[in-house]
């Protein structure tokens, strides 16, 4: 058993690394620096350079010796000059003959010659304030792997997901606050959805080919064709407004969750029932069912005790696949019913282009997915010894 758990853990490593790499590529390589969206459209070049330097957005992506800083500006006389002052560190300033350094504490200025290859060292407590004729500014990284990727992994390990630009709260806090409401909505949806789905699936399978079966099947196909957005709008309109049975906005008592849970269940019911029906039908023609029937067992007992138990394996697999989504929540359902969970947090972040929150929820969701998969597999290995030896 322990060998199986260890093997499963080892298998998780490459996928987790892949998930981290993929989100890094999406948000850092393609997405680039958020300086523009954080500082606003009218941010000065100086502010952007400083923002990037502070948050490490000018570091090389994966590895390298130099950070390219976009710190060159056109001077009024047609030449080029520094766009902002440079803090302590080793620089390369090709094109500049000399640079002026200022001691921060005293304000004393000093002119230094820049080396032939543009090398310049700004000591602690000093800043470089000008270097006329400079064509490019590069800062030396502290070591070869001092990169955005390493910084990103380091931040993740320390659960430092940055600040939300909208709410000015640490993102970790935002995530933790949203988790409770999300689970209070998604767990009932999962439980009710699975139970109702399995019952309908059993009904279908029991009357396979009959009117009931075909009726439920046709209804399921119709249900799964109705758009999710339409489900919410119709539910709110008819059950909240036309016949005001349920509140449609707020998160005060369990009663507020009834309508969203109902909509969540019914919108997923179509595809669920179809799956459960097929899983049960796979079992119903097995020899042991024929044996059970021929030794005189009742229909109900055969179906609920013998068939259901055996078809539970695909059903549990199917249900476990949706467990990770319990944590990220339902985007629309939450934001339409005013439930302050992760779903509405994500929607708000998307609407206000608050990338640090979007990024955090995506990574959080992906890591939870890994974890739940691991736990599910371990549970399988525990329940079914065959899984442990199979490759």
């Amino acid at each position: 058993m322990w060998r199986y758990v260890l093997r499963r853990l080892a298998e998780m490593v490459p996928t987790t690394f892949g998930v981290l790499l993929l989100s890094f590529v999406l948000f850092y390589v393609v997405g680039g620096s958020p300086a523009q969206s954080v500082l606003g459209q009218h941010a000065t070049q100086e502010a952007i350079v400083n923002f990037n330097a502070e948050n490490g957005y000018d570091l090389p992506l994966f590895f390298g010796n130099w950070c390219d800083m976009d710190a060159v500006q056109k001077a009024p006389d047609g030449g080029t000059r520094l766009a902002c002052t440079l803090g302590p560190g080793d620089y390369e300033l090709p094109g500049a003959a000399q640079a002026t350094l200022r001691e921060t504490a005293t304000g004393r200025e000093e002119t230094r010659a820049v080396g032939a290859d543009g090398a310049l060292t700004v000591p602690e407590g000093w800043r470089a304030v000008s270097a006329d004729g400079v064509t490019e500014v590069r800062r030396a990284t502290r070591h070869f792997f001092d990169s955005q990727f390493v910084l990103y992994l380091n931040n993740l390990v320390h659960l430092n997901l940055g600040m939300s630009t909208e709410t000015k709260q640490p993102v970790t806090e935002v995530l933790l606050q949203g988790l409770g409401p999300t689970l209070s909505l998604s767990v009932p949806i999962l439980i009710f959805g699975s139970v109702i789905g399995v019952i309908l699936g059993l009904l279908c399978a029991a009357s396979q080919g009959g009117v009931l079966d075909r009726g439920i099947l046709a209804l399921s196909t119709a249900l799964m064709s109705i758009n999710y957005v339409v489900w919410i709008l119709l539910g709110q309109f008819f059950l909240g407004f036309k016949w005001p049975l349920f509140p449609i906005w707020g998160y005060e008592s369990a009663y507020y969750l009834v309508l969203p849970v109902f909509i969540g269940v019914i919108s997923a019911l179509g595809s669920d029932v179809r799956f459960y029906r097929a899983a049960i039908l796979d079992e119903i023609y097995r020899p042991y069912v024929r044996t059970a029937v021929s030794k005189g067992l009742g229909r109900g007992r055969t179906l609920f005790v013998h068939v259901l138990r055996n078809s539970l394996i695909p059903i549990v697999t199917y249900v476990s696949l949706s467990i990770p989504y319990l944590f990220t929540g339902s985007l629309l359902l939450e934001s339409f019913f005013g439930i302050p969970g992760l779903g509405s947090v994500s929607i708000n972040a998307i609407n206000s282009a608050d990338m640090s929150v979007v990024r955090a929820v995506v990574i959080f969701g992906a890591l939870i997915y890994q974890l739940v998969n691991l736990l599910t597999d371990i549970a399988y290995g525990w329940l079914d010894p065959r899984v442990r030896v199979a490759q």
Partner: protein
Amino acid sequence: MNAAAETSARRGPGAWARLWGNRVTRLCIIAIGLYTLLALYGEGVYRYYKGSLWEGAPACLTWAPERVPPYNQVHMESRYLPPLSVSTWPAHTLADGTAVPETTHRYWLGSDNLGRDVLQRLIQGARIAFHVGIMTSLIAIPLGVLLGCLGGYFGGKIDSLVVWLCATVSAMPGLLFILAIALIAGKGLFGIYLGIGLTTWVSVCRNIRAEVIKHRDRAYVQAARVLGYSHGRILFRHILPNVMHIVLISFSIRFPASVATEVFISFLGIGVQGEPSWGIMINNARARLWQGIWWELTFVSLAIFLLVLIFNRLADDLRDVFDPALRNR
């Protein structure tokens, strides 16, 4: 036995005839044809008012763009008209000086809050839905087929890489990942294509890979190997035609799913800009549903429902005919 004979033996004779013979399936195919015609008509209208056959077309295929296209024309005097009502637009002069005489217009499906024709907008929505369904499939299916073929055929390290890629992408939280890609690629259709296309190839890849593994050691593949054919020839000329039905089934599943996702994304305002997508229309209509303006929301919902329903039904039938084992996957 050559590849084609083995395939047809497995599928049984006349798969297409059986599809066409089923009355419901025939109805679905005809309905999809009608939707396609509607979308093509919408594309024609869109191109006509855009002024060229495509972006940057040569001069012979470019003409002076007409005024505002009919689906975006605002008529404040005929707002909120119920279906079938007739409205008279008074004579007026446009900004460029052309005089427009008084016209009567029948709103078959009513008008919205700016007096725009719901029917015209609905047709444009169908156009966008088809764009999304086809473009995302053009990204997802070739990607999935290529990776699935390579992984399934070669096995070993290549297969591990493909499986790793699939596992990684499928671990990302679906809709949110699509939204993030769309957001980073920039608002508009392109972001939607990329977002949906780059996340949904995984299921295509898995199905193709599983099927290619089944074929890898069949007699006809061994025969091709003995004849000294190259891997590329065996894979793409011999095996691929035998797993093509999965491509067809994948397309019929992917298409409605992409349309539904596009509705969702555009509804959130991240998708299409300035053109009437179904998601935008629903978002537009939902506030006024409470005041009894039911037609816009109803007709858009119906249009989406029917399109998705017929594709879902067709996907079922395709699976039944071509590959019963793939059902429910």
